[in-house]
């Protein structure tokens, strides 16, 4: 009993700050009436800003483990967390006017959004299966509720129900796999699991302990469900379409970063010796995701649904980097997921920008003739779509290039070729939007109105696609240094 060491609480300072402030947001919101609700929003933004500052000043050189091995603070975690805060702050900003116009401007949206951020932070910093699972549940529970928050819409209720049931199945799968790994290794701590597998996982004649690969299958299935990789992608389009656009924006961007961290912690840090096993499973998932995502997206007429299928194909790319199974591949994957999150908030931000009270711009034809209505926003959308398609000089091209190069370096040429092939197919539906914007006549001629800060941020978001594409060096260096 005396061997208990008091944990180093300072390492979890960002988490504690965020939790404290979220509770404050919850309480303050109780005393505000409809007119002053904007204070809830400001407080939520302040919370995220404070978390950025704390995480930034805390970023040290060495990684440290605390809370008896269940928590880790390292550079990869710091970078992912800072991106999660920034992306969530942008999501809150984009959704403010949209929600206000629809009488949906509720404190719960921000409180649950912040709880979700806390869940993501815990997933990013987790160092044991138990913490990963709890963080994931915290995030998922917030997401289910946010999807259902628009109570008068039948589509939202249906989406929330589907999301909840499928999410629960995925959690069950993940948990079952974790319990199998625990049964085989006798530990939940990722470092201990890693060293056990290193020593006892593979027998002299190269056979893998069957319980380990049995557990691995379930874990990969659980991860694939959460990421939305084919064949576990059925929920993605329905939920993207059914949820309100701000919620889609929220659940499409930042949680992907947390999912990347979860893959890194479980598969790379915990089960690196089983790389041959999970490589094969991920390859199947990646190729199917690329194929299904890119081909089915062509048939969509709903913008949100199309972007959902585009997400599925991007998940395929994200997995490619992990499949490479070396540090270069992981850095490429991390770069890809960061860029994807930035691009996707831009794309959904444009839907919000074009929507107005009583009108939802989520059909492809709503983008017709955008160039006549506003040259600037059409140009922003052009940059975002080019980045998603991977057209140089936007950053999407560079992200795809790096991932494909990582795959080529480990002699998986056929994988690289299929990735390029499906990207070319995918380019069709991104460029179709550009065609609609520039070469078609506008059906809807209403002026585009937005608050000044929204105009500024969405312009920055669009220009960032170009700037990062021309000067990717800094972000690339960051991704490389944190993975090594």
């Amino acid at each position, binding site marked *: 009993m005396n061997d*208990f060491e008091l944990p180093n609480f300072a390492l979890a300072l960002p988490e504690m700050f965020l939790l404290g402030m979220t509770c404050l947001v919850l309480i303050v919101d109780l005393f505000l009436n409809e007119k002053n609700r904007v204070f809830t929003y400001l407080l939520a933004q302040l919370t995220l800003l404070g978390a950025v500052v704390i995480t930034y000043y805390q970023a040290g050189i060495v990684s440290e483990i605390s*809370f008896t091995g269940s928590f880790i603070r390292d550079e990869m975690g710091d970078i992912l967390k800072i991106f999660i805060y920034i992306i969530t702050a942008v999501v809150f900003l984009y959704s403010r006017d949209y929600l206000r116009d629809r009488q949906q401007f*509720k404190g719960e949206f921000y409180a*649950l959004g912040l*709880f979700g951020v806390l869940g993501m932070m815990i997933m990013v910093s987790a160092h044991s299966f138990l913490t990963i699972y*709890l963080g994931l549940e915290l995030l998922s529970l917030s997401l*289910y*509720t946010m999807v259902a*928050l628009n109570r008068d819409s039948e589509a939202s209720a249906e989406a929330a129900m589907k999301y909840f049931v499928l999410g629960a199945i995925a959690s069950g799968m993940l948990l079952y796999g974790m319990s199998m790994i625990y049964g085989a290794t006798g530990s939940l701590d990722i470092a201990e699991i890693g060293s056990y597998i290193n020593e006892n996982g593979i027998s002299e004649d190269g056979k893998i302990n069957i*319980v380990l690969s049995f557990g691995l299958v379930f874990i990969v299935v659980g991860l694939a469900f959460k990421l939305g990789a084919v064949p576990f992608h059925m929920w993605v389009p329905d939920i993207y379409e059914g949820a309100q656009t701000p919620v889609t924006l929220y659940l499409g961007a930042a949680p992907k970063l947390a999912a990347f961290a979860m893959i890194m912690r479980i598969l790379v840090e915990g089960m690196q010796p089983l790389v041959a096993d999970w490589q094969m499973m991920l390859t199947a998932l990646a190729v199917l995701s690329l194929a299904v995502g890119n081909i089915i997206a062509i048939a969509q007429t709903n913008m949100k649904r199309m972007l959902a299928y585009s997400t599925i194909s991007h998940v395929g790319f994200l997995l490619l980097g992990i499949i490479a199974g070396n540090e270069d591949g992981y850095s490429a994957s991390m770069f890809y997921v960061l860029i994807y999150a930035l691009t996707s908030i831009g794309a959904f931000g444009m839907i919000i920008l074009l929507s107005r009270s009583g009108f939802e711009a989520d059909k492809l034809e709503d983008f017709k003739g955008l160039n006549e209505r506003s040259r600037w926003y059409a140009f922003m959308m052009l940059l975002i779509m080019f980045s998603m398609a991977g057209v140089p000089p936007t950053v999407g091209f560079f992200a795809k290039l790096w991932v494909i190069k990582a795959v080529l370096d480990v002699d998986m040429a056929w994988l690289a070729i299929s990735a390029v092939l499906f990207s070319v197919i995918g380019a069709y539906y991104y460029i179709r939007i550009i065609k609609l914007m520039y070469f078609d006549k506008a059906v809807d001629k209403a002026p585009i109105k937005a608050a000044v800060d929204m105009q500024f941020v969405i312009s920055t978001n669009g220009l960032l696609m170009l700037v990062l594409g021309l000067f990717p060096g800094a972000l690339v260096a960051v991704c490389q240094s944190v993975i090594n």
Partner: protein
Amino acid sequence: MTFEKFMFYLFAGILILAALRVITARNPVHSALSLVLVFFSSAALWILLEAEFLAITLVLVYVGAVMVLFLFVVMMLNINVDSMREGFIKYLPIGVAVAVISAIEMGLVIVANFGPDKVPALVRHGVEYKNTESIGRVLYTDYLLSFEIAAVLLLVGIVAAIALSMRKRPNTKFQNPSEQVLVKKADRLRIVKMKTEDRQS
């Protein structure tokens, strides 16, 4: 067969039968009651493993609170079971086939690796050993972080439940206790001066 082993098989058998009843019973109330039996039998299994604190918690929390609430909801909602059973027969063959195949596959892996000869025998403790205390000790030390996250998870659950179910109705009638307390005599009572009537004679 020792007495303990006999008890194990007895409770395990009841558990499986009750679990089957949960999904096959026609009446949802019967399903819920079978679920109570499932929880109770697994509590008994935990007692056999000397985990009496967990067993008692399972009975208190799940049987005592959760299932009673559940039964309440089932009775309140009057769920139409027949519509939920549509397609049950249609999907039964493929469902059973998938379940049987995966059960066999999983069974092969699990039996081969976690059979009675592979797992070390249970450590038996004396009477003075308290597992409540040992759970408490690790819960607030080694598993402090997980414990706190679980607490936040419950908070989110509360927020979610309230956010999804609370509706403000504009025409709700309600009492304002502070106004009720602060009420003055003058607010309610009007003293009217009037002439006394003559007695009718």
